[in-house]
Structure formats: C-alpha cells, structure tokens
C-alpha cells in the first residue's frame, strides 16, 4: 500500500487542537450551589463508576481521534496494487459510425461501447490519464487527457453516434497527434463494421491505418450479429405511365428475411409489398404509375427480425423530374445552337424539323401552362405559338414584320438585361440583320449602328394581354451562320442567360439527394424547412444543417420570387448498413491479447472511499455513545405545583 498524497498526513496535526479542546473542556463550567453536601455523597455512591466515566470521556476522545485518523488517511489517498484494470496513459477510440446504432447489443452498440469506456474510466487509477476520441466522419477528442472521472463520464454521456462512416485514418492520426512523444495505450472500441459488402479486408477498420497502431493497442469488439435489412436505393424515373420509383432492399444478414416495404407519396401510402430477401442479396421493387406531380417519396422498411439497424430502414426522394426543363428546338440543323443548348443542365432539348402538333390552344389554356415544353427555340423556322409560350427566335423568319435589312452592325450599346449578363457583344460581327417592326414590349437589347441586334421582352407588359399571356420572347434578328457570334465566348453565355431567363431553372443547382451532413449550396436568405418542422434561414455560407434524414423543403431565393426546391437527405450507406462485426479485422488484437504488457497487469486502486466510510461509522458510534451517556436537556423536568 502506498500513498499518493503523503503531505496530507500533516492534517493529523488537527489532533492537537482536538486534544487541546478536550483539555479545555475539562475546565468545567463553575456553578454555585447551595451545598455540595449531597453531591459529594451522591458521587461517593458512584465511586465505582468513575472509572467508567473517565473511560467514557476518553472513549469519546479516542473515537474522535480514530475518526480523524481515518479521514487523514483517506486524504493521503492510499492505494493498493490490484491486478487487472488499466493504468498509464490511454486513448480510447470510440467508434461512432452509423453501424454503432445497431441494436444487437442492447440498447445499442454505441451504448455498449460507452459502457466499456465507462468501465475503463472506473478503473482509471490516480495519475493515469485517459482521453476519448469519438470516431465518426470527423473524429474529435471529447476530452483532453485527464484523470477527472466526472469530466470523462460527462463527455462520454454527451457523445452520440453519427450517421456517417468512421474515418479511421483521421482518428488514428488524431490519436497519434494527441499522444505526442508519449506512447499511450490505444484502445479501439468498435464493431469493425462499415466494411461494405463482400469480404473485403477490414474496411470498417481498414488494415492500413491499423498497421500504424502500436502492438500494444487493444481492441474491444462490440456487436455480435450482422443481421440487418436496409434500403440501399430509392430512385425516381419518369416513364410513360407516370412516375416510377425503384426501391432496393438489401439483406446484410446470413438468413433470408422478409421485409414489408411501404411507399408513401407526399405522406399518403401509395403501395406496400412484402419482399423476401435472400441472405446477402438485394431485391428491387419498382412501383409504377405514381403521380408525376408528386413531390416527396418515402420508402419505409419493416421487418420482424434480423433488422438491427433502424436508421437505414427509411429512404427519401424528391421528384426532381418535373424540374427538368424541356425545350423544343425547331431547326434545320444548327450545330452551334445545339451544342450550346446541350451544355445547359436540366434542359431536355427536343429537335424537330417541323412543328409538332400541339394540343388545342383552348385546352391548353384550361390546363394551365403545360405545353409539354417550357421553351421554344425557333431557328429560322416559324411556328404558331400560344401567347404565353417562351420563345427564342433566331434568324429572319421571325413572326414579326421585317421592314428591311441592315448590315452596318457596329456595336453601339447594350441595355442592362439579364440575358446580357457577362456578355461582351463588342467583338460580334454580323453580315446582315433584319430590321423588325417590334411591338412596344419587345425592347431592343443590343443596339448597333444599323439597328437593334437583339430584342427581349415579356408579353404581359402589354396592358391588353391577359394574366396567362406571360410569355417571354427573345429575338436574335439574324442568322447565326451569317455572323461570328457563335464563335465568340459570349455566345454560350448568351444562350445560357437566355434559357435561364426564358425558363428559369427550378433550383437547378441543388442535388436531389444528399448524405447527412453534406452541405448544400443554397443562396443566402433562402428558407429551409427541416424534416422536424423547424425553419432555418440560410446564411452566407450555405446550408449544412443536414443531419436529419428526410425531406427538406427549401424556398430558394433568387433574383425574382423564391423558388420552391426540395431536396432529400438520405442515410443510404450500404457500407454502414452492413453491420456485421468485422472480427477478422480484430482477430489476434482483441481485448485479451495485449494484456501481457507488465505495466497494464496491475492497477492502483484507491481505498479512500472505504476509509471515509469507516470514519463515518466511527463518528456515528461516537455520537451514539455521547447521546446515550448524557441526559436530554431536563429543564422541563422541574415540577411545578398546581395552583391552589
């Protein structure tokens, strides 16, 4: 037995004032009485008891000194060497990857891992130090190396598993950076899972970073079963029958399992089916004929058994298909234009030589704006369009009256207009352009000496037009092949601006589905409603509050009115869904293996709590003896005669 805090023994000097107090206490309170006669006689009778009385007094002193001795001894923090346990400096790498949420080690693998870590903290001896590194996609140290058990336990309690795979390389690098020049004992508490399908060599705990660990590293495996069912894919596709959803369910376990998969469209149950998934295989289920206008699709998996991980049982998708802009290019062939259009995202270009048969215009009006095309590009061909159609006219065959031609196309000036954003027209040479009798709402955008070289306008600026007559028109009044505009850098920019202005993309820059924690490039001041209902306003740095899987409803602010643009955050991560503990990776390096190191064979076990408890017991005994020996205050015992 050794003392950790030997100077605390100086507290034993408190015994001196205690004894002094006793001596002082023996100087009794003087009390004048009428006579000591009776007292003397009474005490003579008690002569035999005086020894006991003296002893009792000394007994109290003795007990108090014993109490003090225990307390001082406790303060000096004695310890005994006990086998087992831990000592020295430790770094615990606590796996917080998504697979640690599996419930095969109830309540969950992560809780079991925390319990293991707690055991280690409990065994922590004085002078030892332990730090915990929480290993998820961005490993971080929960505490600095400390022996403060309360701090460690608090940090441990606050730790939560993440929805990500563990980044072991970073974690081990962090551990080595934390260790510095010391060589702490690294303990890895992990299920080793996350390796994905197949018997790849220890993907969860990749072999290469593991080889960086010293041989003294210990591995505490968590988890027993690999039984899990997961939705590994949910995708939407536009078909002739409407929207089709593809759900892929994968069985990570070694037994065939049944799973009830239900598909909800905008919250309403659309279809459900029981799938039988063979062991280590996946089954796809396609649901056809969903409403094209559906916005949010959710697939949920329910299984009675063999489904340890709950987070991968739900997948979300938003219907991004409707956000594809469709353009009709009516052209006899214009490579420049086609290339420029094909480069644009979310634009589906249909090229035709002859105008397609459009539905009756009256029906169109009744059905709203759905022409089947968001945008018409008429390259030197003409077509009758409804007034609300957005159109780009290229060449002389515009529906506007041509009043003449001009060839003096030197640049004069350009109006400020969205389509001219970042377009430099100055170097553009045009052989000849048509002079148009443009209506008032069709404004010249580029002026040359001969006349306007570019028109743009919106029909509803006309007071006579109805509310639906909102079509935007851009006119390039010359044949592109008779100018060097397509060869200019300005051309793709102009086309992109034009398409963007004529048919604004519906949040085109936002991917339909992202992983939790990934950032989304939303413009500032956009408003996002999270799956839990809270609303976040996006700041300058974009939106990264994507920790909850689910549908995020975003109102993307833009130059014009905000655009509704939803996106889904999906856990889908087959590697993490494969929760089978990768024991091969840990084989030979498990808990018991490195116990041969002599410095870990014993631990210093402090015994001060026992001493404190003993001190309390002795103190209680002292109090009891004191109480038993003395009368209760007997002032009230003085008899009062009744009044007569």
């Amino acid at each position, binding site marked *: 037995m050794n003392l950790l805090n030997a100077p605390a023994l100086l507290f034993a000097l408190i015994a001196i004032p205690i004894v002094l107090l006793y001596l002082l*206490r*023996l100087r*009794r*309170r*003087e*009390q*004048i*009485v*009428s*006579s*000591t*006669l*009776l*007292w*003397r*006689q*009474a*005490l003579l*009778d*008690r002569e035999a*008891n005086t020894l006991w*009385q003296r002893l009792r*007094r000394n007994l109290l002193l003795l007990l108090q000194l014993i109490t003090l001795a225990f307390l001082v001894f406790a303060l000096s923090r004695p310890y005994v060497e006990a086998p087992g346990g831990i000592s020295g400096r430790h770094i615990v790498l606590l796996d917080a990857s998504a697979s640690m949420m599996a419930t095969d080690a109830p309540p969950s693998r992560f809780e079991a891992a925390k319990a293991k870590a707690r055991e280690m903290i409990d065994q922590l001896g004085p002078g030892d130090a332990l730090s915990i590194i929480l290993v998820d996609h961005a490993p971080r140290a929960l505490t600095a190396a400390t022996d403060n058990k309360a701090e460690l336990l608090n940090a441990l309690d606050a730790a939560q598993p993440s929805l990500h795979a563990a980044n072991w390389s970073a974690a081990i690098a962090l551990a080595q950076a934390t260790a510095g020049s010391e060589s702490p004992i690294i303990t890895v508490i992990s299920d080793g899972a996350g390796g994905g399908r197949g018997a790849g060599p220890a993907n969860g705990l990749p072999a290469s970073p593991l080889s960086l660990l010293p041989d003294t590293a210990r591995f505490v495996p968590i988890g027993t079963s690999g039984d899990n069912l997961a939705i590994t894919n949910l995708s939407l596709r536009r078909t002739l029958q409407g929207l089709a959803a593809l759900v892929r369910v994968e069985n990570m376990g070694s037994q065939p399992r049944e799973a009830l998969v239900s598909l909800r469209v905008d919250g309403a149950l659309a279809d459900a089916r029981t799938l039988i998934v063979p062991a280590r295989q996946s089954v796809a289920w396609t649901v056809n004929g969903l409403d094209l206008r559906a916005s949010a699709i959710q697939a949920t998996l329910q299984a009675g058994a063999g489904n340890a991980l709950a987070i991968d049982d739900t997948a979300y998708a938003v219907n991004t298909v409707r956000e594809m802009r469709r353009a009709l290019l009516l052209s006899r062939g214009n490579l420049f234009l086609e290339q420029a259009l094909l480069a644009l995202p979310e634009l589906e270009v249909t090229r035709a030589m002859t105008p397609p048969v459009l539905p009756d215009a009256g029906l169109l009006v009744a059905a709203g704006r759905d022409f089947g095309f968001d945008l018409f590009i008429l390259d030197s061909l003409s077509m009758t369009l409804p007034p609300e159609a957005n159109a780009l006219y290229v060449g002389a065959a515009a529906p506007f009256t041509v009043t003449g031609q001009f060839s003096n196309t030197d640049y004069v000036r350009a109006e400020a207009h969205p389509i001219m954003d970042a377009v430099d027209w100055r170097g553009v040479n045009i052989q000849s352009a048509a002079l148009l009798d443009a209506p008032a709402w069709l404004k010249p955008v580029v002026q040359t000496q001969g006349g306007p070289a570019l028109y743009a306008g919106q029909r509803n600026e006309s007071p006579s037009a109805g509310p639906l007559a909102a079509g935007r028109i851009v006119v390039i009044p010359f044949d592109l092949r008779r100018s060097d505009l397509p060869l200019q850098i300005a051309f793709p920019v102009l086309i992109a601006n034009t398409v963007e202005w004529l048919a604004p993309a519906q949040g085109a820059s936002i991917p339909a589905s992202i992983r939790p924690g990934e950032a989304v490039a939303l413009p500032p001041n956009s408003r996002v409603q999270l799956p839990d209902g809270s609303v976040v306003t996006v700041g300058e740095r974009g939106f990264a509050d994507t920790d909850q899987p689910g549908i995020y409803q975003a109102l993307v602010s833009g130059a014009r009115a905000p655009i509704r643009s939803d996106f889904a955050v999906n856990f889908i991560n087959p590697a993490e869904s494969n929760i089978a503990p990768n024991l091969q990776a840990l084989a030979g390096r498990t808990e018991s293996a490195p116990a041969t190191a002599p410095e870990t064979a014993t631990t210093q076990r402090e015994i001060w709590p026992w001493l404190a408890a003993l001190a309390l017991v002795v103190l209680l005994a002292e109090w009891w003896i004191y109480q038993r*020996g*003395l*009368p209760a*205050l*007997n*002032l009230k*015992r*003085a*008899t*009062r*005669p009744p*009044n*007569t």
Partner: protein
Amino acid sequence: MRRGRSIEFADYRNYTPGDDPRRVDWNIYARLEKPFIKLYEDEQDLTVHILLDASPSMRWRDETTDGSAGASGKWTRAAQLAIAIGHIALTSGDRLLLELSTRERFGPKRGAPATAELIAFIESKSAEMDLRESRIAPGLLAPASGLNAWWKRYALDARPGICVIISDLLDAEGCTEGLNALGASRLDTRLLHTLCPAELEPEFAGDVRLKDIETAVTQDVSLDDATLRQYRDRLRAWTGDLRDLCRKRGARYHLTNTATPIEQIMLRDLRREGWLV
C-alpha cells in the same frame, strides 16, 4: 397553636399543711368537711421559638424568584413562613421569640401588634444580608451556619415551648447533634425543612464544577442521567434519615418545596401535619 388554659380544672388532691388556703375548694369542704385542694392545669406562658436559618445556603438563588404560581426563593419563603407562624403565635397571645442563625434575636414579644415589628425585623435583616452578600464573594460569606452549635446553645437556655426551625439543613457537619440537644430539652421541636426546586431537581447539565456557596468547596460533576439519579436517591435518603431522626428525638419534620405556594403550606400542609389547629 396550643396554648395553656390556666383556669381549667384538672383534679383534686388532699390538703397537706402548707398549701395555700385560697386553693381549698370550700364547696367540697362544706359538703364533706374535708379540705381538698383543687388542682388546675399548670398555668404557664407558652413560648413559640422560631429558629430561622439565614445562612448563605438559604439565601442561594433567592433572587431567582420568578413570581409564578407562588413560587419563591428559599430565603423569601422561609421568611414568609416565619412571619406567618410568628403572626399566629402573637395573635394567640403566646410569647414569640425568633432567632436568626446569625444569633440576632427578635422578641420575646407578645400580642398581635408585634407582628409588624417582626416583619420589620426580618426585612431589615434581609436588607443587611443583601448588602453584605453584594460586597463579599460567594464562599467568603460569613461563618457557616453551624446548625449543631447554634441549636445546642439554644437548647441550653430556652424556655419550654414550641420550637419551629426553618432551615434547609444544608450543613457540612450535619445537624444530628443539634437535633439531639433540642430533643433533650423541653422544647417541642418542629423542623420545617425548606428546599427549593433547584435542589430537589437540579437543572444544570453537562460537566460542571459545583461550588459550595458557604464553604467554597468545589466538586466536579458530570451530570448525566446516572448521576442525577444518584443525586435524587441521595436526597431521598437524606430527608428520610432526617425524618427518622426527628421521630426518634420527639420532633416533627416537614419538608416543603419553595415552589409550593405559601397558602398551601400554611392552610393545608401544616394543618394536615397537625402543627396548626
């Protein structure tokens, strides 16, 4: 208080030469022609002696009278008892003689008006003693009461009569010899033992050093339940012994607690004891 009835007939006896012819019952002589002497109860003065203990122990805690329910300090109560008994004696035509343990005497006096003088005497002596005690530290107070010496001396030259002793009997030497002397005299001794509640049921607790107010002798006591029990046993034995001793010496003994109202002592307790009629 009993008193002599000197004109009361007692007996006859034969005339012997030398008898006072005035005491011959001439009516009998007329009928029987024989002289008989008529005997009467011995006609004598009844003297009531009051021996009032004014020792420091009697004065102990006299100022702690709290005035509630007639309780009072030992000295106050003793003085009240002395005045009350003295008053009864005076109004009954008896001779009253009061002596303090300081040997100061009042009387002999006779007749009711002397009551006022008695009160004045006791009050003046109380005041003197208060003054003295205020000047002198406890323990250095004037001589221990010396009950034995006082009573032995008093018994020597006391006229026959009733002797009422009012005292706490707290004397280091005890009072056995004094009681013996009084018992041997022709005094009808009545011992009114006056103790206060603090003596009957001590109130202090803990480790104390008890100091005798008269002798300044100290005694260390740890007051626990056992000690207090011992004290009460001792007190009971002591008063029992005193009662036995008094009975043997033909004296009467009564223990009063100063917490008892004086009315109750005078009107009930002493009548029950037969001290008063």
